[in-house]
């Protein structure tokens, strides 16, 4: 069953139609065959009937011949001689007609099946000659004659029966049977005639003959009865019409006479004539029946023929039409189905563009329309889907992808927290970098932070997160509680613990009336924090450097250079002492260090190098702290460190100084002017610093009416000279305020420096203070003390000579070592510097009034002036 269901439609059609067509064709074939057989049958019947008619005719004549022959024999050859001869020729003619009919080709064709019977019949007919000869010789008795002829007739009639009793038409078959009964009745009648003739001729009738006669008549009547029962109305009509009248009644009358067997007073010829007349009537009826059968077979054959052809034609026409209609409908159906199939196939392959077109209005057409509607709808929804997809794509490309890109590349850590404090699956790549872990998605945030921050912050964080998701609390207020807004985290990467400064911000994300998530942003601020620190340090450094520069710029470079040189040497001497005197008393060493540093500090103060004095001061303080407790070797490390630091500072200042000097070298001409200005400035400052320190108010006056400029080398040397002179003046020359007031001097002392141009190629620097001048006895005492001269020499020495002692090496007027008085250099230094300049000097003084020193320098007039102009221009 399933095989049938699964067949393709065209095969299904074939399964339904082909058996139907086969059945119709078979039916048609049977019909045609039936008609053909009918036709054939009636044709054959026609032919056999014709042959039968001829046989009947022959039988009819032989019946007559039999009767005549019996009459002839019974009358001892007296009667019927002529009639016998006549009848024999008639019989022969009838037999010839039978042979002619038999010889016809169509007849032999039809009778082929009955050849045996026909041959037998022919042999019987041929045996007639012998019988006739015997009759002529009168060697045969009547009964023998009867038997011979009857046998021939019987065979003839049986042959007729066989020949014609072969039709399929029931009606005709019945009439054929009626005819056969009739023929048999006629044969009996003929025998009756013969017996009657015999009996009447011999005027006697034995029992045997009588019985035969009665039986004959009964038989005849039985056959007639049977004939009348089955014959059609026309045959019955023919019978009742023909078998009536005088001759028939006479036969009945004569038959009754014979049957009564009382008297045979009847002329046999009369019996013969009457019976012959009746038999002729019977023959007529027979002929009529045969005629009708013949015509009916002709009708039948022609109708069968007509039917056959009309059936064939109608069959062909209807068959052709049916086939035509079937082929049109089936091919249309199949084509439609094929179209649908192709269409659905196309659709299944994803081609939605075309529509199916089936113009028929049947179910398939409806399906096609429905399909089209469906396809339209699917197309429409496809379009919508495509648009949605494009939208989604657009969104992906423009938003999601961008977000992902942002997430990947942004330096901030970003993720979402849900209400269970779980971290979102999506988070920015920076998270992994900042925290150095990959396990972020889905982690509980407080667990995540646990190893990174201190427990107190963690507790605060948990509380803070609960507040974050509390819709009743204001976001700004909650955010003020953020414990990790800026926090230091420690994480371990490959065993190395690193410190990071991170900033974590929380932003609420609202759903409907509810905080769904909190967006957390994490920024790594380590670098900026470190940078800030670095900046602070750099700032400090810069400040230091600036101060250094400023100090350098303020102070005479040679002074600084000298100071730095001395300081470095002194510091080195401390280090050396530390190394060599490890065994010595630590306390002593500390004291020594303190004094040394203290004197360095004093020097720095004197030259106004605040940065250095501060540094030395801080060392002093460190040492001061150490002094208070028991000193150990270790403690010196801090001191040494500080000293080292100071040493570095000195190096820095040296390099700075070199840089400044480089600047000067770059602008050598302009440098002089600047140096001159700086010289004045530096001198002025020195005066101010020293006077403040000594608590001796001193004013500094500088006079350069001709705008004279010292050369670079001269400036350096002059500055050193001047500084030395100023130091001496303020320290020794200018009196304390009380002394000055007593002597009636101005409270404020003053120092004058004047540049003069007294003659060509000479520049004169005039230094003058209004102090107490030189104290000769004091100088002599000191010189004696220092061992420069003896007491004796001192008493003898003139004042002029004595004052020159101050220029001696090793002469120092101050007992105390302090930052202002230098290290016992003094006037000896001045003298040597003047000599270096190849200048001359002349000292002058008035005790209690002034001290004056005039230095004469070689000078190039022109150069100085040009330099000045250039300096102004630049």
């Amino acid at each position, binding site marked *: 069953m399933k095989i049938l269901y699964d067949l393709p439609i065209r095969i299904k059609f074939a399964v339904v139609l082909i058996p139907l067509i086969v059945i119709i064709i078979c039916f048609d074939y049977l019909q045609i065959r039936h008609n053909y057989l009918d036709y054939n049958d009636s044709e054959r019947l026609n032919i056999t009937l014709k042959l039968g008619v001829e046989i009947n005719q022959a039988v009819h004549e032989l019946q007559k011949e039999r009767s005549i022959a019996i009459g002839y024999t019974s009358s001892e050859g007296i009667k019927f001689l002529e009639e016998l001869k006549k009848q024999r020729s008639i019989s022969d003619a009838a037999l010839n007609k039978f042979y002619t009919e038999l010889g016809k080709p169509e007849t032999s064709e039809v009778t082929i099946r009955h050849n045996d019977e026909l041959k037998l019949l022919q042999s019987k007919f041929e045996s007639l000659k012998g019988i006739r000869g015997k009759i002529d010789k009168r060697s045969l008795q009547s009964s023998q004659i009867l038997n011979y002829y009857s046998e021939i007739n019987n065979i003839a009639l049986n042959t007729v029966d066989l020949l014609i009793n072969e039709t399929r038409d029931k009606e005709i078959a*019945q009439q054929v*049977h009626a005819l056969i*009964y009739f023929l048999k009745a006629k044969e009996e009648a003929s025998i009756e005639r013969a017996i009657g003739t015999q009996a009447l001729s011999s005027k006697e009738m034995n029992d045997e003959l009588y*019985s035969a006669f*009665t*039986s004959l*008549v*009964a*038989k005849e*009547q*039985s*056959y007639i*009865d*049977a004939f*009348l*029962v*089955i014959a059609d109305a026309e045959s019955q009509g023919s019978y009742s019409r023909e078998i009536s009248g005088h001759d028939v009644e006479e036969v009945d009358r004569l038959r009754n006479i014979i*049957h009564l067997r009382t008297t045979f007073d009847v002329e046999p010829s009369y019996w013969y004539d009457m019976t012959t007349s009746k038999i002729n009537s019977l023959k007529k009826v027979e002929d009529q029946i045969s005629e009708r059968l013949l015509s009916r077979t002709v009708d039948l054959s022609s109708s069968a023929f007509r039917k056959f052809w009309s059936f064939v034609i109608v069959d062909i026409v209807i068959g052709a039409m049916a086939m035509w209609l079937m082929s049109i409908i089936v091919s249309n159906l199949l084509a439609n189905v094929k179209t649908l199939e192709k269409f659905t196939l196309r659709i299944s392959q994803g081609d939605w563009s075309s529509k199916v077109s089936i113009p028929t209005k049947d179910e398939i057409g409806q399906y096609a329309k429905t399909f089209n509607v469906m396809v339209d709808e699917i197309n429409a929804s496809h379009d919508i889907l495509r648009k949605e997809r494009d939208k989604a794509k657009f969104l992906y490309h423009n938003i999601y992808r961008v977000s992902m890109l942002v997430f990947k590349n942004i330096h901030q850590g970003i993720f979402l927290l849900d209400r269970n404090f779980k971290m979102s699956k999506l988070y920015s790549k920076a998270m992994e970098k900042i925290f150095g872990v990959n396990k972020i998605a889905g982690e509980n945030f407080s667990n995540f932070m646990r190893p990174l921050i201190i427990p107190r912050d963690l507790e605060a964080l948990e509380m803070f997160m609960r507040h974050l998701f509390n819709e009743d609390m204001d976001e700004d207020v909650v955010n003020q509680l953020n414990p990790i807004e800026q926090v230091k985290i420690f994480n371990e990467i490959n065993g190395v613990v690193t410190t990071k400064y991170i900033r974590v911000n929380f932003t609420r994300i609202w759903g409907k009336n509810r905080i769904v998530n909190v967006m957390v942003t994490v920024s790594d601020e380590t670098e900026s924090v470190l940078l800030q620190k670095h900046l602070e340090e750099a700032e400090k450094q810069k400040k230091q450097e600036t101060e250094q520069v400023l100090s350098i710029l303020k102070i005479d470079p040679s002074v600084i250079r000298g100071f730095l040189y001395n300081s470095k040497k002194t510091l080195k001497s401390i280090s050396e002492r530390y190394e060599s005197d490890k065994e010595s008393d630590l306390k002593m060493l500390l004291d020594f260090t303190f004094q040394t540093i203290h004197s360095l500090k004093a020097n720095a103060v004197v030259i106004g190098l605040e940065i250095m004095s501060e540094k030395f001061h801080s060392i002093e303080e460190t040492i001061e702290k150490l002094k208070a407790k028991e000193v150990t070797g270790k403690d010196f490390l801090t001191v040494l460190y500080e000293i080292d630091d100071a040493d570095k500072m000195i190096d820095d200042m040296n390099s700075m100084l070199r840089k400044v000097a480089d600047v000067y070298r770059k602008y050598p001409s302009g440098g002089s002017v600047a140096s001159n200005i700086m010289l004045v400035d530096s001198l002025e400052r020195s005066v101010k610093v020293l006077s403040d320190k000594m608590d001796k108010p001193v004013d500094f006056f500088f006079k350069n009416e001709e705008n004279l400029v010292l050369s670079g080398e001269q400036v350096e040397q002059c500055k050193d000279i001047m500084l030395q002179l100023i130091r001496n003046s303020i320290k020794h020359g200018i009196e304390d305020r009380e002394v000055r007031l007593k002597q009636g001097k101005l409270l404020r002392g003053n120092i004058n420096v004047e540049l003069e141009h007294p003659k060509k190629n000479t520049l004169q620097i005039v230094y003058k203070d209004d102090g107490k001048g030189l104290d000769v006895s004091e100088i002599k005492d000191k010189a004696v003390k220092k061992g420069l001269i003896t007491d004796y020499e001192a008493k003898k020495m003139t004042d002029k000579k004595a004052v020159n002692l101050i220029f001696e090496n090793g002469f120092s007027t101050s007992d105390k070592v302090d930052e202002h008085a230098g290290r016992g250099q003094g006037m000896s230094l001045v003298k040597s510097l003047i000599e270096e300049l190849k200048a001359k000097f002349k000292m002058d003084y008035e005790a209690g009034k002034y001290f004056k020193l005039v230095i004469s320098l070689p000078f190039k007039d022109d150069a100085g002036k040009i330099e000045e102009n250039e300096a102004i221009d630049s």
Partner: protein
Amino acid sequence: MSKKVLIVDDSIYMRSLVRSALEEAGYEIAGEAKDGESAIDLAMETQPDLITLDNILPDMMGFEVLKVLRDEGLESKVIMISAVGQQTVINKGKELGASDYIVKPFTSESLVEVVNKVFA
């Protein structure tokens, strides 16, 4: 005791044929009737053992005669004699109690055979 037979036939030749055949076979002929009415009368009168009843009679059909006889209570055996092609008539006779039938034309021997069979 020989059986009595009533012969019913419209044809005298048939009646004499049947009579001679049966007499020769040793049956007693109770009588002959040439039509239905006389056949009924004769049958009721003679009460034969067997009736040979021709189907075609001048006044009525043989089976009608048989019906009347059966209605009257006659229990004689009956052999229907019929012309060729009257099968329906034979069937009717059998329904009404005919013992056998014979088709005309028949020979004396075949008739005697049938009659003997009926009495056997």
